[in-house]
């Protein structure tokens, strides 16, 4: 039985994300590298989901479909990590609190299984969220 769990979301660099942005953000590799949420083993259990399941991650600021993968840099129960990129930035806290810097780290989110929903490519995702017409 799948559940909805609450996590604290942070974003940041991974080497796979770095390779993907230099290799071409229009390519599926970028989605593979950054269209994911890294979660702790314990949180997978609470969610009641298999690894590499598509999930919907929702914050006060938006909602996004990404693939849930088990973290290789844990344990960090209660913490979710989406590599920096448009998937993370669709849901992070844009408030800068008069510093100029959005709050990319420390955003309360919920995660729920969304097995049949597609994960969009990077450029496609931003165009869709911005309402840009494409061919």
């Amino acid at each position, binding site marked *: 039985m799948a559940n909805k769990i609450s996590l*604290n979301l942070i974003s940041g660099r991974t080497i796979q994300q770095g390779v993907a942005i230099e290799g071409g953000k229009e390519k599926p590799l970028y989605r593979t590298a950054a269209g994911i949420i890294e979660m702790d083993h314990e949180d997978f259990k609470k969610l009641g989901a298999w690894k590499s399941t598509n999930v919907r991650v929702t914050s006060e600021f938006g909602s996004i479909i990404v693939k849930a993968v088990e973290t290789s840099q844990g344990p960090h129960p209660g913490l979710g990590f989406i590599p920096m990129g448009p998937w993370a930035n669709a849901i992070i806290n844009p408030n800068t609190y008069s510093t100029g810097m959005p709050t990319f780290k420390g955003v309360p989110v919920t995660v729920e299984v969304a097995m049949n929903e597609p994960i969009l490519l990077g450029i496609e995702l931003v165009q869709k969220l911005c309402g840009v017409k494409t061919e």
Partner: protein
Amino acid sequence: MTKTITDVICPFCGTLCDDLEVVVSDDGKKLLEVYNSCVIGTEKFLHSQAKDRVTRPRMHQEDGSWKEISYDDAVEYTAQMLAKAKKPMMFGWSSTNCEAQSVGNEIAEISKACCDNTAATCHGTSLIAVQDIGLPSCTLGEVKNRADRIIFWGCNPAHAHPRHMSRYSIFPRGFFTGKGQMSRKLIVVDPRVTDTAKMADVHLQLEQGKDYELLDALRVAFKGEWLPDVVAGIPSEKIREAADMMKSGRFGIIFFGMGVTQSLGKNHNIDEAIAVTKDLNEYTKFSIMPMRGHYNVTGSGEVFAWQFGFPYSVDLTRGFARYNPGDTSVVDLLTRGELDAMFTIGSDPGAHFPISAVKHIASIPSVCVDPHLTPTSGVSKLHVPVAFNGVECGGNCYRMDNVPIDCRKVVEPPEGMLTDEQFLIKVRDRLKQLKGVA
């Protein structure tokens, strides 16, 4: 026959590695192999050779398609956009050379633009803290030769600056650090057990966003005063162990990253990290350095500071430079909907800004100057591909420790492609005509 070019500079991260070897074809038109660089740097060099690369400017059409246009038409659109706008933004600058940044600043003055660089979403809060309290820093050469206490706070160089540890901070044998890694103690502060943390002598796995508390606790521990049993999720004994390790070194350095600049507290976290460094100098020699991301974000701050007096978030709309992050910073200006034109160069706000800010870029006249296809080019009205700086043209760049290094050209760009600087000079000259500036 092929040629091997040595001592090539890597234009990816702020480490600005200067020992790459690149193999090119005899005519200098094809890049074949890259040696010594990290996997990200290698990808950057090799991607310049991609067969599907866009080599001419493209204008986004009403029906969603893209129409190829000439560089002259792209110059005309850009100059007209900047001439007509009341409050344009010229953003990016961190993946291009200082020469191009300087021409860009001339354009910004003529068009009375707001200017910002990627520090706005990276180490901008560090710059605010430096203005608050100062920065006792050093060069990476000093770190290599002297540092025996290395602290990585809220940064993960194993992923973000892959050769930093092998060239400067952990593994190299320096003049006073002849045993390399054996000469050094490594402390990592991070809420995750990162690949950097796995190498640490002490890993402080703090609760996310509690950096200020932990920094403050370290200052208390240095003085041997009372501490609560647990601070930021770390037992006080472990904090005292880390504090003693820091104090007992001969030369220490704190490298800090986005974990502190982007978490709540922001510039105040850095204030406190710098105060920790100041306190440690009561006992030994200590320095602190931001782990700068883009290879020339430091240079952009330098050029802004020489020419306008401020390192980022500069507003020239009144004809003189004003600086007030939170007011004149790019994310705030976009989310408040104050800008009426967006010029982006050498960065990708479409991928790295909150989506609420990107939506405003998509709704106004916009130009994206970038060799790659990116989310920014995808939502801009005009995309101008240019030569890869550091691969297909040279130019001055600044390493994360403010050391200037000249990037090298190793291969010819595709025929007819302009560099950032050449495109900006054309825009500047046309803008001068439009504005009637001599």
